[in-house]
């Protein structure tokens, strides 16, 4: 849905990624975004928060406050941390209603990173997205 508002950081990500075309520049950018990821507490890197279904270790936590979800995530792999950062700047801080309507696939499409979702079950991004969708459907 085009009416869903784009958070400021997401807007920034979009203009950065639309600027670069070569795999090398884009990979550098992704690695830079990995550094933006909100620090993930080491005690939260536990089995309960582990996202299953990917060979690379990925953790996700979610909190809901006044109808707004806040997610935190991390991974052992840096490029995946970059992808997670790009996901979180898009979905954190928006309302649960907006989040429910958001087409995440389309977001990565706009960034030119759609193949990262579909390509490999190793990279884990897809598993994280599915886990988020499941969390949102679960009764709170």
């Amino acid at each position, binding site marked *: 849905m085009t009416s869903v508002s784009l958070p400021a950081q997401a807007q920034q990500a979009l203009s950065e990624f639309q600027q670069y075309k070569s795999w*090398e520049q884009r990979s550098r950018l992704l690695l830079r975004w990995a550094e933006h990821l909100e620090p993930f507490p080491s005690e939260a890197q536990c089995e309960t928060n582990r996202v299953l279904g990917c*060979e690379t270790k990925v953790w996700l936590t979610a909190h809901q406050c006044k109808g707004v979800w806040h997610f935190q995530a991390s991974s052992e792999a840096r490029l995946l941390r970059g992808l997670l950062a790009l996901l979180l700047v898009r979905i954190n801080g928006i309302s649960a209603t907006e989040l429910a309507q958001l087409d995440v696939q389309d977001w990565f499409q706009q960034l030119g990173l759609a193949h990262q979702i579909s390509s490999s079950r190793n990279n884990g991004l897809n598993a994280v997205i599915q886990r988020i969708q499941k969390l949102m459907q679960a009764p709170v």
Partner: protein
Amino acid sequence: MMLSSPWRADFPALANLAHQGLVYLDSAATAQKPQPLLDALQHYYAQGVANVHRAQHRLGNRTTQAFEQVREQVAHWLQAPVDSEIIFTRGTTEAINLLAYGLEAQIQPGDELVISALEHHANLLPWQQLALRRGARLVVLPLDASGQLDLVAAQSLIGPRTRTLAISQLSNVLGNWLPLKPLIQQAQAQGAWVVVDGAQGIVHQPPNLKQLGCDFYVFSSHKVYGPDGLGVLYGRRAALAQLQPWQFGGEMLDHTDYYRAQFRPAPLGFEAGTPPIASVLGFAATLNYLYQIDQAAWIAHEQRLHSNLLTGLQQRSGIRILGQPQAALVSFTHESVHPSDLAQLISEQGVAIRTGSHCAQPLMQHLGINGALRVSLGLYNDQQDLERFFQALDQALELLV
């Protein structure tokens, strides 16, 4: 001079991949196919298909005859002794499952099923689950510090309770040959059945089963330049006679009424349902193709490539090679870079290599790593493929280190 492959042009996919800027270094996962195989599939489908072992019509007879001839061809290729059979399955995985189910009734609580620590999940899970079903004990032969099978420890673990020994010919992760001969002799002396998983080994050194003497030998056609959906289970007749059928239906029986059936002996009693006929016929074409290759030149070519691959990796700092690879493939990690990061950036550059746990999670745990990258070679690879890989690796490391 650049090392080139005289057989590359026989594999049409290589040129097509090159057109797309892709380099294929993942043949241990599955291999590209030679033109004679494509021709054989085209021929079979275009000239008229028929089911095997069923129809009385001429077409059926012709297909059945051709199909049965492939058994002989495979037996010949494996240098199988006369008192043995070739059973067609859907792959290595199915062949091993067939064995684990077929032997189930023979396994008593407390019996020992032996595997090695480096087995592919296909040669671990069927035995693990059989042990759980029957209250048997799974015994895992350990590796030494260099990743080789610890033969002394192994020999102390094979004993009077050992009922099966299931072991690879060549590791799909470490690229080392296993010391089959002494293990087979010891296990058989204890009255155990020996299963050799030849899925990787056969691609680089077809066995001499007369000499090897194992009871069962299994492999997949698709890894040895043949079509998908076809595996081979070789068995000594005496060993096959101990197996119970595990899948039921079709023409695998001698006689049935509504309530009771009598089943055929191997091979047909273990081939319930329509087999992958086109794949069997296509595999014959692959075998004919492989036969006319100069074996010595083939082995020498792969050895040179393998040695260049190994040397190139050893020259790069931070790279840790798993085990002591002897053939076909090299697996490695980097001291400060996660394998999935490295794999992703290599893939971005159009080089296909494998990453992850390579269907050997317990081995990864044993090695204390969270995955590895694997470069594997086929007879069509050349030095230029390796150069492309090294270039991609260097560029990826430049970004990541």
